[in-house]
């Protein structure tokens, strides 16, 4: 579970987020929706610690993020997987090296264990036999799936997806949406998806925060039928 309390953030005197509070639930696909420029990405960056909020607090399962020591913050970050809008795969690394990156950096797994885990993650997102390709050689949809594989390689407790459907055709967008929802349930993660795609809202949204002009404008809890 991730809880945000009274988050505010300004840039050069312009208030982008105004007093936002919300609870993102575990095992559910939580959505942050709103039109472009409403502050969705800024809120997410405040939650993951890329921006420091001017006011308010972020709690990761009762751990108050702002008061944690740098070492403790690092530990929290190891529990976070993030899928960026443009995938943010490392250009100079192959698909396999991209997915293996967090494992090589933060675990003491042997190379064979790393390879096994990498192949498991890539299989999970249906990327087969493309281990030696570079990100520039992949389609947009494949890049997104590799980015998801990298995000889940360390078995994160929290998954953030910044507009996972942007630049994708409707069919691939649905595939990515379904994949995110499946792994959320499978790994019982707290998943936060930022989107302005109403198809995604209808397809996977369970706990929805609607932001308009930097303020919380509504909360929807949707029961699936």
């Amino acid at each position, binding site marked *: 579970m991730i809880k945000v309390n009274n988050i505010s953030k300004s840039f050069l005197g312009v208030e982008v987020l105004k007093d936002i509070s919300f609870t993102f639930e575990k095992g559910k696909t939580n959505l942050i929706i709103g039109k472009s420029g409403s502050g969705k990405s800024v809120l997410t960056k405040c939650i993951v610690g890329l921006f420091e909020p001017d006011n308010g607090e972020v709690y990761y399962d009762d751990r108050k993020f702002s008061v944690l020591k740098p070492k403790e913050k690092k530990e929290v*970050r190891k529990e*976070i997987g993030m899928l960026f809008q443009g995938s*943010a795969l490392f250009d100079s690394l192959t698909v396999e090296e991209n997915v293996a990156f967090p494992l*090589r950096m933060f675990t003491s797994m042997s190379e064979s264990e790393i390879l096994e885990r990498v192949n498991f993650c890539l299989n999970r997102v249906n990327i087969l036999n493309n281990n030696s390709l570079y990100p520039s050689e992949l389609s947009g949809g494949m890049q997104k799936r590799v980015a998801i594989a990298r995000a889940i390689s360390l078995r994160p407790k929290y998954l953030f997806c910044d507009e996972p459907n942007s630049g994708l055709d409707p069919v691939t967008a649905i595939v990515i949406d379904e994949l995110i929802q499946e792994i959320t349930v499978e790994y019982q993660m707290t998943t936060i998806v930022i989107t302005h795609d109403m198809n995604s809202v209808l397809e996977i949204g369970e706990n929805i925060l609607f932001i308009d002009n930097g303020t919380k404008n509504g909360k929807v809890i949707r029961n699936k039928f």
Partner: protein
Amino acid sequence: MIRSLGKYVLMLYHIFFRPEKFSVYWRRFLDEVIQLGVKSLFIVTLMSAFMGAVLVIQTATAIESAWIPDYTVGFTVKQSMLLEFCPTIISLILAGKVGSNIASELGTMRVTEQIDALEVMGVNSIGYLIGPKIIAALFIFPIVIMYSMFFGFFGGGLVCYFTEIISVKQYLLGIRTFSGDNYEFIKYALTKTIVFAFIITSISSYFGYYLKGGALEVGKASTNAVVYSSVFILFANYILTQLILI
């Protein structure tokens, strides 16, 4: 200005944080040695050989006199190459090649959120991306400059051999003449090179890492990296020369 200096100092401070995993950083260091040093050897060879060749012709033409022995040409070429041409001119060339490469690489990583991805994972992105570049440059640039000295002399020798502007024997004699100070001169050249290596990599990394914007800004960062690195190299060259040689 002060804000930029503060950010630059903070960037350098972050480089010295303990690496998350030494083996990953070691691999990055080796990659950077190849990227910054080995891949620059072709242009360095070309530049050095032609500089040596042109210096021989210019010196021989300028001091054409019965009173001045031929080996003076070799001696002048040696002094010029060791003291100035190899460490400074080659470093300026490297500032263009390596500096723009570093700034555009890091700038593109910033624009495409790859640096954010590292930060979210909990990786010290400055330490991981910039640290190995600086350390690799400090290690490989002196080697590249010594390599450049060799090819500078070699280029001069080739001109002597093919044009007979002076004999190769006289040229080699000139290079060996007054060699008592050679060790000091090489030490001076390598000290300068180490300072220049630091200037090139740290300034270029600064412009790339803190880039804001898109593709247009990547181009600007690349240009700024080369311009600022070159200007600081020239300043440092003057200060170091005054400090060490006088």
